[in-house]
């Protein structure tokens, strides 16, 4: 009774025209034709419309270098969003991603700064991410701490550890290859985007085609069912948090290559932005609903909106304002569709 189902909107739907569960489906039941198509693929249509409109209003929007730039900016967010999607699907959320990102990035600078360190950098980063994910998962499943608080707490603890480790400020530099991945492009295609795409494909397959992915949806869709059909819901949940932690670590490493110099706040704001992107992309906080392509579309929308606001000549502040409006509108859109 304590998750989304216990909150006003869900209750509203109980007393209203049948429960949300009873009518909401991915397919948008009862709708067909153009309206159904628009409803099912609304997020992608919206993204395309946004791009077209931006291109018309500000022609420089569609310039190669601008697009390349946007893609480079989107990639780290996209990587985090993939993990966040797994976690939200099992009715959770992960606020510790930004702390994981920064810690992995800081860890990347604690070697000699050559490519020979790459395995160590990657290993240590992943260890941090997976370890945090494991801690989150255990707190949430075994100690039954709410995901919000569990990941908030690990976020703070990790921040303390990071500061203690760096004595206040990270120093040193990241391996050159990370530099390249984080800040270069290959014929206009940023390397970090390639990393994101590879991860999206791999984890997209895991989520949408593998047995594990099915377990994720069942666990999030109905945890009790999951338990009673012999799916180790706890293990699935822990795995999701580890995926989120691991991907956040990779995103942190990629982002550390963005400037080459690392500070304590690499990834600041990603914890909420990644949730926002996922929600815009149709991942439901109530669990069991959403997809990786949708979530990535959400990340793309955020990136495009940010970029377009500037190109339209609006003050930077409108980036935040429009972000706020988009998230409410998107959530309202999905709510409406569910009814």
């Amino acid at each position: 009774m304590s998750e989304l189902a216990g909150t006003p909107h869900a209750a509203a739907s109980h007393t209203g025209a049948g429960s949300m569960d009873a009518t909401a489906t991915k397919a948008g039941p009862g709708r067909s034709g153009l309206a159904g198509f628009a409803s099912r693929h609304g997020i992608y249509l919206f993204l395309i419309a946004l791009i077209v409109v931006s291109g018309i209003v500000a022609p420089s929007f569609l310039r190669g270098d601008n697009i390349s730039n946007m893609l480079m900016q989107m990639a780290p967010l996209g990587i985090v969003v993939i993990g966040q999607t797994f976690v939200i699907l099992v009715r959770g959320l992960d606020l510790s991603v930004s702390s994981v990102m920064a810690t992995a990035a800081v860890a990347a600078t604690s070697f000699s700064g050559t490519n020979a360190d790459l395995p160590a950098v990657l290993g240590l980063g992943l260890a941090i991410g997976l370890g945090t994910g494991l801690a989150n998962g255990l707190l949430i499943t075994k100690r039954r701490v709410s995901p919000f608080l569990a990941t908030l707490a690990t976020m703070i603890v990790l921040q303390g550890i990071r500061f203690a480790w760096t004595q206040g400020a990270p120093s040193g530099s990241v391996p050159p290859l990370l530099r390249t991945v984080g800040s270069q492009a290959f014929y206009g295609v940023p390397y970090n985007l390639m990393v994101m795409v590879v991860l999206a494909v791999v984890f997209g397959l895991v989520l949408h085609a593998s047995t594990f992915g099915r377990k994720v949806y069942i666990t999030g869709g109905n945890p009790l069912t999951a338990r009673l059909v012999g799916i180790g819901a706890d293990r699935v949940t822990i795995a999701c948090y580890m995926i989120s932690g691991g991907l956040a670590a990779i995103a942190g490493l990629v982002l550390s290559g963005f400037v080459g110099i690392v500070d304590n706040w690499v990834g600041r704001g990603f914890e909420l932005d990644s949730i926002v992107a996922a929600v815009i992309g149709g991942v439901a906080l109530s669990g069991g609903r959403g997809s990786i392509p949708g979530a990535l579309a959400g990340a793309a929308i955020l990136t495009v909106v940010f970029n377009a606001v500037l190109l339209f000549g609006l003050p930077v502040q409108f980036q935040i304002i429009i972000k706020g409006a988009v998230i409410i509108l998107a959530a309202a859109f999905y709510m409406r569709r569910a009814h």
Partner: protein
Amino acid sequence: DWYKGAPRTFLFNPSADVCFKDTSQYKKAGPYTIGFSNAGLGDSWRVVALHSLEKAAAEHKDKIGKLLITDAGHDDAKQIADIQDLVSRGVDLLIVSANTEKALDPAVSRVMKQGIPVVMVDRRIASDNFVTFVTASDNMEGRLWAQWLVEKLNGKGNIVILGGQAGSSPNEARVRAGMQVFDQYPNIKILDTVYSDWSPVKGKQAMQAVIAKYGKDINGVFSTHGLQTPGSIEAFLEAGFKPGEIPPHTTADVNGPLQMALKYKVPMLEVGYPPAMGGQAIETALKVLDGAKVPCITEINSQIAVTRGDETPSIRPDVYIDEMVVKDGPADMLVTGGMGPGYDPKTFSVDYPK
């Protein structure tokens, strides 16, 4: 080789009377308990400044019985609490590096009212309710940077201000002083002011947005410290600016921007803001507790360096950037650290009185 003289802001100060404070009322017998309320760590400048302060305290073990250090993590509310806690612990003198100049004003003023002397370091409060402020003249830095940009651009062009932490006194003072210069040139236009929190990562993100908006119209970047400057240069490179095309940048203290200036042929002016002022704060504190006269603003000297060929009529360097840079050193190293050879912020540890 470098300029080693007294602070030029003092020597060249044209006013007849320089403000001095009588501190006899604070005279006390040692050993002292000194408190240091730090705004926070988080960037390499602040770490070196803290180490410099600890080192100086260690060198004065005879006089200092205890040095109590708190760190507010860049949170105004916590810093106020920290200051209250330090006062509760019975400090004889308080050194404060205020997170933001206005927010800490009431709290610091209060301490002074209670009769405890306050020495500000690096970041002051808005009012003058302290004994002295140990700094390296943010005003001079700001004016020199602005004057140089104006002269580089022959009085005409578009400037972006890349700030540090909004509301922190060094940032505000440097921008204010810079604006006093820019305002004299009607053909200089400030396109935008963005903030980086002294972080190269945030600096790069902020500059990317600005470059997306203005592109080649940007003629100069007024960066209020070296911590964020590399982010800006990176953003230009990524936007397709070739070496030699990147507009002039200003910087301070940090090795990375100097390396980049040489590598990508970025015209650059460095005006130092040495973290060694941490140690100076301890020296000044001891003077105060000894009842000696101290200047209202204790400025330590800054180095001036430019890329070769980029000196202007008003800006004559002490050294060239290629002489100053530590070629193979880490990018985040503080070239003006003054901590002596063999210093490594990661391993530094000193036995100061606790």
